[in-house]
């Protein structure tokens, strides 16, 4: 059984079919690069995997569990939950400008912590804990207030502890992408390469099993692409899969276990880097590679 299985994904915008049936699968630890000319549907594919667009047809399975099927209706909550299997690094970083690098990485963690604590408290309150419910009947108002205050204090302390853990985790992530010195800088004070590395750390914060990159270096000056590609290379691990949409052919050849070449909304050819770059079969891929070589 594959770790991620995408079946027959279709997506149209207005009358234009952008994805015309995409099938692929990958294993944990796999790195797959998606190449192809602009407009071939690469970005739309990533957006469909992250549910930023909902595919018109097809399904997505992770661990054999169907997390998306176009024939079903999903509540916002389910989409939010299922989406967390994936992380996405955008071409344009999309960092939150009003927060420091550290806060950018912490924010998703803190929000998750807050929600978890709130739900735990709600569960406690709704009397799932029978001992608490029996007690509730007996105690006086004053004791109730005291209990409430004590619970509040306990919650605040728990939150404080959890937030401190989040801060440590965010700091580690930023150090891992080489930004230990820049944690307290705002995005406008960082270079494009540094911004993208913060964005990568932020995407890693929630520990997605499948990390997607949408042309992570396309918005960068050429001399800054190296640092970002180095970081992406360092992320290769048996614990996660990566899908990288890129125009950096050499990088793709180097890092990928498999390459997918997309053209006109379908997977025209897929294979190992060796097969794709050395022994291309389809005419479209040959033309694409020729074109790429000429324009370098």
């Amino acid at each position, binding site marked *: 059984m594959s770790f991620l299985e995408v079946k027959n994904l279709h997506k149209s915008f207005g009358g234009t079919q952008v994805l015309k049936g995409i099938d692929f699968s990958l294993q944990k630890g796999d790195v797959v690069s998606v190449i192809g000319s602009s407009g071939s549907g690469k970005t739309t594919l990533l957006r469909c995997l992250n549910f930023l667009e909902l595919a018109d047809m097809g399904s997505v399975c992770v661990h054999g569990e169907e997390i998306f099927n176009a024939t079903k209706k999903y509540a916002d909550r389910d989409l939010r939950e299922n989406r967390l299997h994936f992380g996405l690094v955008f071409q344009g970083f999309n960092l939150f*400008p009003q927060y420091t690098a550290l806060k950018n990485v912490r924010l998703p963690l803190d929000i998750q912590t807050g929600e978890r604590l709130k739900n735990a408290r709600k569960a406690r309150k709704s009397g799932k804990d029978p001992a608490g419910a029996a007690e509730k009947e007996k105690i006086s108002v004053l004791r109730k207030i005291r209990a409430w205050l004590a619970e509040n204090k306990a919650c605040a302390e728990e939150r404080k502890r959890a937030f401190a853990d989040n801060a440590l985790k965010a700091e580690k992530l930023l150090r891992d992408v080489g930004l230990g010195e820049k944690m307290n800088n705002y995005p406008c004070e960082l270079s494009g390469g540094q911004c993208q590395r913060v964005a990568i750390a932020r995407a890693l914060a929630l520990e997605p099993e499948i990390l997607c990159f949408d042309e992570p270096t396309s918005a960068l000056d050429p001399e800054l692409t190296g640092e970002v590609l180095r970081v992406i290379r360092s992320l290769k691990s048996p614990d996660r899969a990566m899908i990288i949409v890129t125009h950096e052919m050499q990088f793709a050849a180097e890092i990928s276990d498999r390459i997918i070449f997309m053209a006109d909304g379908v997977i025209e050819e897929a294979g190992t880097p060796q097969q794709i770059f050395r022994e291309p079969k389809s005419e479209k891929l040959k033309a694409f590679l020729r074109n790429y070589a000429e324009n370098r």
Partner: protein
Amino acid sequence: MEELVKILQELASGFGTTALLFFVTLVFALPLGLIISFGSMSRFKPLKYLMKAIIWVIRGTPLMLQILLVSFLPQFVFRIMNKDLTAFFGISMNALMFIFVAIAFILNYACYFSEIFRAGIEAIPRGQYEAGQVLGMKKSRIFFSVILMQVVKRIIPPMSNEIITLVKDTALAQVLGVVDLLNAANHAVNEYVVLTPLLYAALFYLIFNGLLTILFNVAEKKLSYYKV
């Protein structure tokens, strides 16, 4: 000298009314404006067009007309029902008139504010919402944790414009006999047959707006640590 003290006392009391109208309008029109802006951006078409129509009517007619309408409509209705308006609400005519003026101001300014909010919200790139989404945030979470502060920064200049205009527009309250700053000055001019009360009134407005301008400059500086 005694005359000057008296004039200044009257002006100060008028200024009190002006300032009260100003703050009441702000406190209610800002949140109402945000709600109207959400309505005007709603994907539910009937709501969207209703809000757009309201904004069109309110921005398309004079504020003075709206004040008159807001006050005359209930008076007219109560006359037909043969009831006494002030007795019904249990407050003085002056207070009632102030409330009518305030309602007209709140509605009017909420519509202008809503358009400023809308411009601010729509100027935020989609990528900011998407970044929040892929990090598992709820829509309301994205708005309050990610979008709002960026909107605030963007709308400070147009907001300061509108709020300074509001200070001066409060002078329209006198169409219902509310004794605001300008009305008080006018009374003093007639009573003491001197022009200086008008100059004093001008000074009051200028100082008030000067303080507001400083406040907005400080806010702008405070938020200049990041770029949107």
